[in-house]
């Protein structure tokens, strides 16, 4: 890291919100979604699951290069929403952020097998 690059630490309201590009594909255990979040550090990524609504929110931080007044690169927010179907086990979702790429692993829910319910006779 060069010393000239000054990473601002103050929290500012991001000026622009982007929808991250996503790939979704099938894997053996279920599905994987990959979302592009360039410039996002793990601390600035928040994933929430509320009922069936999966939300990914993240932000980058402003950067000021030496010799420029004000921010050279403005902070940016990312936001994307997905709705999960019953076929996905929401409790088993795993997330990994590497090189600005978020990989969400969405395991298939175990299908309830039809079964006979015994009736107790008194």
């Amino acid at each position, binding site marked *: 890291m060069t010393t000239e690059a000054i990473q601002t630490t103050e929290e500012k309201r991001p000026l622009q919100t982007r929808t991250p590009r996503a790939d979704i594909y099938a894997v053996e255990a279920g599905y994987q979604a990959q979302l592009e979040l360039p410039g996002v550090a793990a601390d600035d990524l928040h994933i929430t699951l509320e009922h069936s609504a999966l939300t990914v929110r993240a932000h980058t931080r402003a950067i000021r290069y030496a010799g420029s007044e004000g921010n050279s690169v403005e902070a940016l927010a990312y936001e994307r929403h997905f709705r999960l179907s019953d076929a*996905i086990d929401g409790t088993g979702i795993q997330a990994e952020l590497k090189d600005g790429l978020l990989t969400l692993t969405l395991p298939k829910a175990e299908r309830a097998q039809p079964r006979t319910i015994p009736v107790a006779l008194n």
Partner: protein
Amino acid sequence: MLTLPHLLRIAHPAAAIHTEIDRLVDRWPSTAYPPVGMWTSTDEAVVRAELPGFALDQIEVEVREHTLRISGERTTDGEREYLRRERWIGRFDRRVHLPFAVDADAAQARLTDGILEIRLPRLEADKPRKIEIAVQ
């Protein structure tokens, strides 16, 4: 219209519109990838390219005179069954015109969180010089 996968649907209508705009932007010529920004001072130029998911050995950076060239390739598993595909696939080759001659040997590139940052110091001989004019 978006083809919505049967298992994961875009829940937010605004998100769907943004995605559609992004997809239209995607159809621009391949030279527009990756998105690039440049900042210059009197001493250097800084170029930032968004390359999420790329490793350094997948990217080539070359400087020739006033042109910076960023190229590479992202391949994917052809067997994969995609429900949605928005990310860049294939070769890219982007050229950025630099406003001044740079010292290519002193250039530095690093890849952090999917951002390729290239710092290009201005060639000493190219820097503007102040000439003192003696007053008679």
